[in-house]
């Protein structure tokens, strides 16, 4: 096996690989992965050629919805998702930050109409220097992704 890591292979499910080290815990929390009974294997601070160190999350018997994939893209833009079936990778894709995000996060502006009415939050995303900013479709306020992600 040489330098290969011994992380248990899964029969069917999803592997989120190449997560920037430190983000793995946030993803577990954000996607409520620990709330389910799914079997999860995690690796933190594993050596990575591309990143130096990386986190990895393997979730048995669970596929991600498009919304979850979009949320994931915000926290782990460098990650790749491997869809596993019968121990083989049947699909593999890199994260792309979506142009819009609906329903995933509450608007941090407490006076935004979305908190009182039957509508989902809706953000337009854009990159500014090293940050990803989210602009609320309704109150038009602009937030950095860290601020939006703090509140859910």
């Amino acid at each position, binding site marked *: 096996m040489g330098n290969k890591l011994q992380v248990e292979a899964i029969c069917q499910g999803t592997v989120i690989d190449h997560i920037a080290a430190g983000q793995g815990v946030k993803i577990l929390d954000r996607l409520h992965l620990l709330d389910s009974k799914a079997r999860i294997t995690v690796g933190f601070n594993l050596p990575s050629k591309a990143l130096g160190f990386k986190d990895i999350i393997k979730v048995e018997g669970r596929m991600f919805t498009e919304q979850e994939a979009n949320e994931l893209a915000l926290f782990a833009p460098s990650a790749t998702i491997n869809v596993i079936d019968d121990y083989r990778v049947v699909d593999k894709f890199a994260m792309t930050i979506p142009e819009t995000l609906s329903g995933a996060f509450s*608007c941090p*502006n407490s*006076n*935004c*109409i*979305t908190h*009182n*009415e*039957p*509508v989902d939050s809706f953000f337009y995303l854009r990159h*500014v220097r090293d940050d990803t900013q989210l602009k*609320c*479709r*309704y*109150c*038009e*306020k*602009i937030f950095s992704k860290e601020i939006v992600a703090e509140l859910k």
Partner: protein
Amino acid sequence: MDNRFYNRDIVSIADLSREDMEQILDVAAILKETPHPTLLNGKVIASCFFEASTRTRLSFETAIHRLGGTLIGFADGGNTSAKKGETLADAIRMVSSYTDAIIMRHPKEGAARMASEFSGVPIINGGDGANQHPTQTLLDLFSIKECQGQLDNLTVTFVGDLKYGRTVHSLAQALTHFNATFNFIAPDALAMPDYLLQELDEKGIRWQRSDTIEEVIANTDIVYMTRVQKERFDETEYKHIASKYVLTNETLKTAPEHLKVLHPLPRVDEIAVEVDQTPHAYYFEQARNGVYARQALLALILNETGL
């Protein structure tokens, strides 16, 4: 004339292009010159003010009457079913089934955008919390064009509360379509927000911060005054600060002849009453123009062929 506004919502100044703004200003100028008292005959327009307003509501309602439209509505959300717990979404669905257009003001930011998603008729935003007040911006632009003869390449000096003043933010954003240059004069605590400055930079707009009105007045075309609210400071601090952001005849000594002073009103003491008598004062004409700018919007939104 190709009507760019028929059946369209007016929610945010960010939704309007330069050509859109120019069309409204052209129609406003025509309506100021020539009254069209039957243009809105047969139209019923709702004026839904969930938050109190003086100028905006009265000028909208005047605009409707002057064009021959019929008005229904309320001036205070306290007397509506909102108090019983009805959602705004339901209220708007209901009102839109009665009327041809809805003018609304609401204390929550984003209320007008959300209303436009539930309404079967056009929504005109008369102010949503601290967010947008697009018709104020249109009347500001109309006043600037009227007194300067054009909108391009002007230098505008904004004074006072540049942090919370939505009229300042929207007007600055609108003027980015017209290659404006900006001076910002405000106490540190009420400075222009960074995200807006960043937006100006991205659009290649020239701007600078200045300490006093005097140092930029000679090269200014429009002074846009706003009120520094007392409650944002303690009393001693306020006295010290406020005097720096007051416009007097002395401040205007080196002003070019064509310079005009605008103010969204109400004024408290940031423009000395003596300035009212100078040819620079334009704020009351500006307030009057609110009726024409709003008439223009209604005329375009409710008539497929425009004027």
